[in-house]
């Protein structure tokens, strides 16, 4: 009984810590290792770096990293082309139906190296850690259901349903009421 309680507690600790911990300073060697993705030949999908797996995919489930990703999405004007995920001159992100797939490595490569037809490379504008944070956030935009770690609405004029109302695509033309 006691051991089982301890086990539950330990699992809760791991989950809680991973979801909420804030690693404010990423060690430079780790950051460098995070850059070592191995995309497939066609640039869609691929193997994440070993260190990414070893860290437990912190950019997909950690609330702080997702929040930072959302900030970068605004700061680096992803809105300019993708709008709030609804799509404009760039493709929509909210529908989760993406040209190069939803795989994190694929997204990382898209952001870092750019893609044909207008997606610029952010290699020299963002650090590896920031690109990963954006990858994590962009994935939540296209999700079928919100994760509990996903960021919520911003303090600004609302042009899209909040992230925690996923699947957001279905709600895109906001109905007047429920």
């Amino acid at each position, binding site marked *: 009984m006691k051991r089982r309680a301890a086990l539950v507690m330990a699992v809760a600790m791991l989950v809680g810590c991973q979801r909420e911990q*804030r690693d*404010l*300073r*990423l060690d*430079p060697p780790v*950051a*460098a290792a995070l850059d070592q993705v191995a995309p497939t030949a066609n640039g869609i999908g691929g193997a994440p770096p070993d260190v990414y797996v070893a860290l437990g995919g912190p950019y997909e489930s950690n609330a702080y990293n997702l929040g930072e990703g959302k*900030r970068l999405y605004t*700061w*680096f004007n992803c809105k300019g082309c993708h709008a709030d995920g609804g799509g404009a001159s760039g493709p929509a992100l909210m529908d989760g139906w993406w040209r190069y797939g939803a795989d994190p490595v694929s997204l990382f490569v898209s952001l870092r190296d750019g893609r044909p037809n207008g997606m610029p490379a952010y290699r*020299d*504008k*963002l*650090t590896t*850690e*920031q690109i990963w944070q954006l990858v994590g956030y962009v994935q939540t935009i296209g999700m079928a259901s919100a994760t509990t770690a996903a960021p919520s609405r911003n*303090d600004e004029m609302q042009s899209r349903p909040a992230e925690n109302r996923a699947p957001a695509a279905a709600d895109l033309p906001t109905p007047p009421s429920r």
Partner: protein
Amino acid sequence: MRLRHLIVSVLLPLAAGGCAGSQSALDPQGPNAASLAWLIGAFTIVCGIVWLLVMIVVGVALLRRRGAAEPADTPLAEDPGRERRKGAVVLAAVLATVVIVTGLTVISYLATHSLTAASGEPLVVRLRGYQWWWEVTYTSPSPDRFVTSANEIRVPVGRPVRLELSAADVIHSFWVPSLAGKQDLIPGRDNQLTFTAERPGIYRAQCAEFCGVQHARMALVVVALPPDEFAAWLDGQLRDAATPANEEEAAGREVASGKACAACHTIRGTPAAGTLGPDLTHVASRQTIAAGTLPTTRGSLAAWIADPQGVKPGNKMPMVPLSADELRAVSAYMASLK
């Protein structure tokens, strides 16, 4: 105002200034802060006297009946006449409280009035709070003479300065104790603060409203200059960034405009035109970097660029991987941006 001088001279020893500039309500360097210091002194003296009186009465009450009393001693009977007389004394004490409290309210109200009454055409400076730095914009009747800087406000001595306060993200509070009381910067609301510096000097200011993980390292300095010096300085700020004087600095400019730096920072006269972080056009002319965290030297610039998250964990400046040469060059260049 002899009393004022007395109070100030009593309080002054408590207000030792640091080398970053004084940051103390007890070391007033402008009329606002001076009348506040006077008010603090007056309240302290009145309240101190009241407190002392109460303590003396408690002490006397305890001593006058000091004896080896025991819990089991029979309760004392009350003498109605005596209780009535005590009632009168208590009533008098209450009335005295009312009088004192009213008096303090009145002087506080008068002080408020004297603070809001400023004379002369003010210099209008816009101060915008970000997590965790300050953007400073000097306004002018002609829009092409607006100057944007960061983490340092320069003001002319003797002229009132009106700060127009706004916040970009969360609530901050601007507080330069040697010159004025604090005023909050609130998203969605516009606030103002007017103050005057009486003497040239460097006055440290700090964010006083908890604003997140680096609230502690969100400071700035107010530098008061003689009016002509201020005008000359402002003209200097209008100019574009200094051109590199040697090869190393030129290489540094390449790094600053080619690497991630340019995505967030503006260096006027170079391709770097980001608006997310502080304007760096004249960064080396400022006293401190990273919102009052480090003094501006080439060494500290290098340390900051190399490891911003080690110096100020959680701030929004990422650790951009640079080679040793790049770091040396870019810090040399930054140090040249006077």
